[in-house]
């Protein structure tokens, strides 16, 4: 069944456009006038002004490695993040913790941990899959560099960006 749309009956003033046009011009003129005196402009001047303070906790920025409250690195080089990473941005070179080391019971730690930020799509799957809660997407969003090499974050950079995160998994703990 066809739907009948009732068109409103327009008055002559509405049909000849001009009053509406003049009203519209008045509105835009007021905005122009306000903006000329620098009032009412909502633009944020980006590098000088930032929204960082208002960023939500669940913001998915750059993936980073975090240390726990005792300053221990948490990654155990299980390589799950490397396998799940859809654009294959993560490259891990694992290393066995030698006998006699205090942390022998942990067995593995990454010798090298690289995230290629030119490939990363900030999906957060690495964070989701990590059994040790070692990798987190933090709030850094402005990742720039002048070369491709610069855009690859190595272990040092990742821990620097990650900082400390208090967590629940205590593998790197003497008592557990």
């Amino acid at each position, binding site marked *: 069944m066809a739907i009948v749309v009732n068109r409103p009956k327009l008055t002559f003033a509405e049909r000849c456009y001009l009053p509406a*046009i003049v009203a519209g*011009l008045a509105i*835009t*003129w007021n*905005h*122009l006038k*306000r*903006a000329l005196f620098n009032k009412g402009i*909502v*633009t944020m001047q980006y590098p000088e002004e930032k929204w960082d303070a208002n960023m939500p906790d669940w913001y998915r920025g750059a993936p980073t490695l975090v240390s726990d409250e005792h300053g221990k690195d948490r990654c155990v080089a299980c390589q799950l993040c490397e396998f799940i990473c859809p654009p294959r941005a993560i490259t891990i070179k694992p290393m066995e913790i030698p006998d006699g080391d205090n942390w022998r019971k942990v067995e593995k730690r990454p010798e090298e941990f690289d995230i290629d930020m030119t490939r990363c799509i900030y999906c957060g799957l690495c964070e989701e899959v990590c059994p040790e809660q070692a990798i987190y997407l933090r709030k850094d969003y402005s990742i720039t560099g002048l070369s491709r090499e610069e855009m690859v974050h190595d272990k040092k950079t990742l821990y620097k960006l990650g900082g400390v995160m208090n967590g629940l998994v205590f593998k790197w703990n003497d008592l557990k």
Partner: protein
Amino acid sequence: MDIATILHFLTIPWVFLLWTSFLKSFIFLNLTIIVVSVTVFAERKVSAFIQDRSGPNRVGIPLTLFGGKKDSFFWGLGQMVADPIKLLTKENFVPAGVNKFYFWLAPKLVMIPPILILAVLPFGSTLFGVSMTISELNVGVLYIFAISSLSVYGITLAGWASNSKFPFIGGIRSSSQMISYELALGLSVVPVFMICGSLNLNEIVDWQIKNGWLVSPYWPKGFELSTLIHPSELVHTLIAGLSIQRFALWIPLLISFIIFLVAIFAETNRLPFDLPEAEQELVGGYHTEYASMNFALFFLGEYAAMFAGSGAIVSLFLGGWSCPLIPDGSHGWFWGLVNIGVFFVKVSLMLLFMIWVRWTLPRFRYDQLMKLGWLGFFPIALANIFLTALILAFTHR
């Protein structure tokens, strides 16, 4: 050959005409290009302000590169220089499958007509006794109509030569838009000819200096700076300006002014009639496939057309280069320059108005424009001519 002979040679009438014409063309063309550049910047800035944004405000002098403490932005005025440099240095990409000859020809066809229109616009009165119109054609307004309707060929050709669907629709729209407003455009100025008795833009401006701007219903007769001092003379001039004919003629002139204004918006493809371009529907319309300087020529053509259209409106209805209390160029070169300045100020205000309208109104639908042109403006403009004739016949002294 000494200097005296050269000077003598330069004052031979035809040589004098030749070199002054060249000089005038050169200066006014460059002034127009500068105005176009400023208008593009103003467009971006005004649109930003209307939409509560701040617009381009970064391009300036990078003082930090030379060891300065802070960059100086100059409200983004550097954008006027940066944009042309960007367009000039970009790769001029030509897609495969286009008709190369017409593809290259089209931007030039859009650019040339508005520049040709500048030839008959009275930019000013006189400077050192030389008329500030490049060519005082006695069919000036007809020339404007003839030339300005040529620019639609460029647009249609661009749409067709691009060999792509969106430009093609844009080109087709442009040509059928043209037939719907061109008649109203031509007919709307007939009352002006009937009142002024001339097609020459200079004579129309002269008429307006004597009898007042055509959009005003009242004009004090013989109003000069000296009359301000004598109250009795002032009252006399104010009363002398009152006339029934002028008041009655105001109605048809206002109608023809509005129709002409709206038609110029359509002529220059400005919103609310930018159907050939229609970014939201047709990507970029007729210039979708164009890049770098070819695209810039379209851009330049559009804004030069705005300038030429504003110049025509100002000359026909708003008194051209004249301004009350400002004498013309025969009183000295300074006043000649002031007259040119007055013309450019008026044109700039017109351009500002065009920008203001663009960022206020939504685009007309296709059939709405056709309806407006054929059923609205065409009959009104036609009736307006008869109305003017009747008023002129009955109030004839």
